[in-house]
């Protein structure tokens, strides 16, 4: 029983990490219908710039703010690239985000380096002990921050005018334009928000996993899985997807074999895509032919 609890707790920790990354996918998909495959690289950019700003001697808080600003600039840059090729099909735009990811990875190798970097945990290195297992302070912080972001995103999309405009833009661009919504601004804001969430994720993750130029690849992939499993388009979907993925991985590693851990994650992804193509929370938008 205690064993099971340990596995669950570890799964929840990992699950919220996936959630943090998955949220970024949700936000951009929500407004533009594009899957942004450089989301993982946004996470990397957030973590790496923070580390190097700290190396440069800036205080922790200033580094965080600057890193978040840098990453949101990168997000806006990606939007600018996409808006240049606005007439292209969605699939080309998705490929564009893939290319941008590779570009960011290369850039990080040149600007920073290829080494692993870490920073001290800003809530202390310790861990809470629950029964016979533990959860580090940093992991608890991640859970709290991720939950806060999810709730505020939900409120933002449901209750504010800007948020509703974003949803409207994703449902029908032309209609939204006719309603006087400034699509360009809305989309740019969306990419910026998504980059901000990613950079917060990068900053929170670095003390746990440490960071280097290619840390975004796997994170992006798992975050993408989380978003798909939960259902693209709703912040709660990212949470559900992240938790399902994290807990399943942890249980498989614990009870079956750690060899099959990643395989199971992808099998679940396939199963969800087959049987619930909209994800756990998603409702497939019906399309008129």
């Amino acid at each position: 029983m205690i064993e099971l609890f340990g596995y669950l707790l570890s799964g929840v920790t990992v699950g919220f990490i996936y959630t943090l990354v998955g949220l970024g996918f949700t936000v951009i998909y929500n407004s533009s219908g594009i899957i942004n495959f450089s989301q993982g690289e946004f996470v990397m950019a957030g973590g790496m710039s923070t580390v190097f700003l700290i190396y440069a001697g800036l205080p922790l808080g200033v580094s965080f703010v600057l890193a978040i600003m840098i990453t949101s600039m990168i997000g806006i840059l990606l939007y600018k690239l996409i808006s240049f090729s606005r007439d292209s099909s969605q699939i080309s735009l998705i490929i564009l985000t893939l290319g941008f990811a590779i570009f960011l990875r290369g850039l990080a190798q040149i600007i920073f380096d290829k080494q692993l970097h870490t920073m001290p945990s800003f809530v202390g290195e310790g861990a809470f002990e629950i029964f016979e297992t533990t959860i580090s302070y940093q992991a608890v912080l991640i859970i709290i921050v991720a939950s806060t972001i999810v709730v505020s995103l939900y409120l933002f999309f449901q209750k504010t005018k800007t948020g509703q405009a974003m949803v409207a833009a994703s449902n029908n661009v032309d209609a939204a334009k006719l309603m006087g919504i400034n699509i360009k601004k809305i989309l740019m804001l969306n990419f910026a928000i998504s980059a901000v969430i990613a950079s917060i994720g990068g900053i929170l993750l670095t003390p746990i996993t440490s960071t280097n130029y290619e840390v975004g690849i796997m994170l992006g992939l798992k975050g993408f899985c989380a978003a798909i499993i939960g259902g693209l388009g709703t912040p709660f979907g990212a949470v559900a997807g992240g938790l399902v993925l994290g807990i399943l991985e942890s249980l498989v590693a614990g009870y079956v074999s750690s060899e099959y851990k990643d395989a199971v994650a992808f099998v679940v992804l396939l199963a969800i895509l087959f049987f619930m193509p909209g994800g756990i929370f998603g409702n497939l938008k019906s399309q008129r032919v």
Partner: protein
Amino acid sequence: MVKNFTLRALALMFISSFIILSASTIKIGAIVAATGPASFLGDPELKTLQHYVKKINDAGGVNGQMIELIHYDTGASPKKAVTFTKRLINQDKVVAIIGPSTSGETMAILKFVKKAKIPLISMAGAVAIIDPVKPYVFKIVATDRMACEKVMADLKKRNLTNLALISGSGGFGKSMRKQCKAVAPKFGIKIVADETYGKKDSDMTSQLLKIKNNKDVQVVLNPGFGQGPAIVTKNYAQLKIKHPLYQSHGVASKKYIEIAGKSSEGVRVVAPPVVVADKLDDSVANKKVALAYKNEYEKTFNSQVSSFGGHAYDSLYIIVNAIKRAGSTNPMKIRDEIEKTQGFEGVDGVVNLSPTDHLGLDTKTGMIMLEIRNGDWTIVK
């Protein structure tokens, strides 16, 4: 006609420039994974090669000729390694090749160097590269088997017989896991748990909990490199597992201590001697070379020395010495002289090559056992 003439003139110019060039320089090829997943190997290797080739040339070159280093970056892809090997042999006409950085790439190019009869010194780890002996292929890097043997010997000394493995699923972790499982019985050690993790995983608590709850386990070994072992170390400390923890030579750099922080206290790491060159006993034959290399690398590139750059240093100097002794740049003669290398004091250790041994690294000095105390290495006697 005019066109024909210009073409001929161009061809003549090209050929003559080629002759002048090849008369004045000795071309040595290098195939390294300077970027991509094995860049932690290739990056220091390439830096070392470039730095020391320049140093040799500044001091007047070899036998009055300058060395020209022609290097290609494979990104750890065996396919690219093959392409670049062909280019080095057919277009660049090099007299010897250093690299590739990884075992998979090395195995892929073996038949091409054999056909071209060009000597190759690989910087990869796998035993299969030089066992069985191939006439043109050498390597001076300690194998992961040596690292396993070192760990097992240490376990035996401490009377720990029940070992749990938690290995990274990357090439390095996989290969070392296999080697350790193969040598364990020879030392009377039983593998009682065998866990793995993805090399980009962010939490290994589940695997470690399983090990913690396994009553048979006495000691844990973690083959892997990169951030994985650091996370294992942190989780290990969080779960308060009491068994001794061993790490592989994949993390034998100060970076590991920095990232794992206080959790790394008391962890034992099997490592090549260069990491602690300054702490080595003066009786160690290659201390001077290793220390000089460590200091020069750290001063020039402003980053921690790793053993990997040392492989490049050793390979380069073994070839250069062979060219000096041969007094010729004929690949065949260079090969013969490489094979006669005796008592070469390199960064990795003392190398004695022979027609039956193309590794030639002394197993006793190739790997040492370290323990982390107060955030620094101490040598375990």
